[in-house]
């Protein structure tokens, strides 16, 4: 009845109260602590930090708890918080060669200086449910090895020495800031990478996958994948030097891609790059494939019309906070527009009916 549209305010309050109760669940079960989420759901925390573009594991854990484990909702909470934070300065560029490595593999060489380190990976686990976990059994401590002494050179650097891979000259141009300037196209590579690193993991994964299946094929090899911890430094103008303000864990992926050469360039390998907060290697690999696919114009390649080559398509649709908001807004009332459509359809039908009768 007409009254159904009334009382929105009370309905919202009650819905929020119910939501809070559902989030808590059965009160006879212990409440989740943030440190439990941070420690034991670390990959979820990593994803929320990466796509929320805010490196703060405690806040990410809080967001996951508040969002009842809905990671896109948690990412949204982090983004909305992040946007209110003042910008005190920009940190110095991190040097990933100095990373304290947890994991470092190359698919292009059997062995490389610095060695292959598998690290804590699911890769060679058999995906069998471990019922011991359900029985709350403790795991024995893992064997330990001394920390790999750094810095560990990049694999692509070895190719670079022989000129086999495209040069990546140093560039000190300050990168644009996607969160402070509206996205305008064409975007440079720095801006594209910024958008993709906070883009939805599923979207970036599928885009990358599509290039492997032939939609903008770029023949990627994982030259190197490394995961580890790095210091972040901030230059303090008052002091005149940089101070360490904290540590972040990142995943970096460099792909090596076939390039047959063009009229102006001899045949050599080209690069795709991915860098993501935390241990997020699926995302980092996917990012490097999409990065490489988007570079077709710069490398003088053909536009095959593949979605992953289309900068506007990728950049405008990779953000899950934007996508989910717009998708879900169709739940909001649209009865004014629907009413106008209803009248239009009725009018069109009324006009069509006499025609139909005349034809018969």
């Amino acid at each position: 009845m007409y009254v159904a549209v009334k009382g929105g305010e009370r309905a919202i309050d009650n819905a929020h109260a119910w939501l809070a109760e559902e989030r808590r669940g059965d009160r006879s079960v212990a409440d989740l602590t943030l440190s439990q989420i941070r420690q034991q759901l670390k990959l979820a925390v990593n994803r929320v930090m990466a796509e929320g573009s805010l490196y703060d594991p405690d806040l990410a854990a809080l967001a996951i708890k508040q969002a009842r484990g809905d990671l896109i909702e948690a990412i949204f909470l982090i983004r909305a918080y992040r946007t209110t934070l003042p910008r005190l300065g920009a940190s110095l560029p991190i040097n990933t060669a100095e990373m304290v490595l947890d994991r470092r593999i190359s698919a292009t060489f059997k062995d490389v200086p610095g060695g292959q380190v598998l690290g804590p990976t699911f890769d060679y686990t058999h995906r069998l449910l471990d019922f011991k976990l359900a029985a709350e059994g403790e795991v024995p401590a893992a064997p330990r090895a001394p920390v790999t002494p750094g810095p560990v050179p990049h694999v692509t650097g070895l190719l670079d020495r022989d000129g086999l891979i495209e040069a990546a000259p140093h560039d000190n141009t300050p990168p644009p800031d996607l969160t402070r300037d509206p996205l305008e196209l064409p975007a440079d590579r720095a801006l594209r990478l910024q958008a993709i690193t906070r883009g939805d993991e599923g979207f970036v994964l599928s885009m990358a996958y599509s290039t492997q299946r032939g939609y903008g094929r770029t023949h990627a090899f994982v030259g190197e994948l490394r995961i580890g911890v790095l210091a972040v430094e901030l230059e303090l103008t008052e002091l005149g030097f940089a101070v360490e303000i904290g540590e972040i864990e990142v995943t970096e992926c460099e792909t090596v891609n076939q390039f047959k050469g063009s009229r102006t360039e001899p045949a050599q390998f080209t690069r795709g790059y991915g860098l993501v907060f935390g241990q997020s290697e699926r995302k980092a690999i996917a990012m490097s494939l999409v990065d490489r696919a988007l570079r077709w114009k710069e490398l003088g390649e053909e536009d095959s019309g593949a979605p992953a080559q289309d900068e506007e398509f990728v950049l405008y649709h990779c953000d899950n906070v934007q996508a989910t908001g717009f998708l879900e807004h169709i739940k909001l009332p649209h009865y004014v527009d629907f009413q106008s459509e209803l009248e239009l359809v009725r009018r069109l039908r009324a006009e069509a009916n006499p025609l139909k009768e005349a034809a018969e």
Partner: protein
Amino acid sequence: MTEGHAYNFAYLDEQTKRMIRRAILKGIAIPGYQVPFASREMPMPYGWGTGGVQVTAACLVPEDRLKVIDQGADDTTNAVSIRKFFQRTAGVEVTEHTCDASVIQTRHRIPEATLIPGQILVYQVPIPEPLRFLEPRETETRKMHELEEYGLMHVKLYEDIARHGQIATSYAYPVKVEGRYVMDPSPIPKFDNPKLSGSAAIQLFGAGREQRIYALPPYTEVVSLDFDDHPFQPTKAPHACDLCGAGESYLDEVITDDVGTRMFVCSDTDFCVVRREAGHEGRLAHQSAHEVMA
């Protein structure tokens, strides 16, 4: 979100407001032109009025009196949510009366009451680009606006007439502003289009997800696109309001039982209430009075 005082007045920091105000001023200087702005993540989802909320936040001063409507009504859930947001973060007075409001944020409607000088009407816009569904690429549509290349739109309207005998667009009906930019008026029913033109109020349009702001300064000429032999026609349900009897207001159709009985009521709830308080009565005024109270 915690208490209002933990955040700046009207939520956004002053730097962000300055950036948005500059975009608004540019939009007012070039009526109908879509100004890119660095839209912020807001504590409500994209597509739920973040553009309008940012524009409202940048316009509000403590003396303002705010009205928020969705589908013409003050008590729809999202209107309630946005109104509460500003009560909490800006502490401004709120009202449901169109004539008492200094700032009105709206989704999908223009109030029935004529707006007056000094009022600001803020529209929530989902897709600011009127050419978007004809050309999906932003790089292309910006070029089309630059070159005033609107042929595609006219072809679309012509094809509508060829196929249906009339222009089959009933909301978000495209307009031309001061003879220059083709503009999307947001998904208001085309019934509301005539109110866009020559309005005494400032009309601001915010699209948060798409990062665009555009504007109509007071007394701007806004023309709904049409052809000489198929002139633009605003339409509404061919009924009078069953509560207040108004024959000239936009109506919502409400299904009242499972055998197809319907009633028609003003979509603009304030307009309807004011009329009923003044003694106007519709077909079901008495019958539904107790239901509304219930």
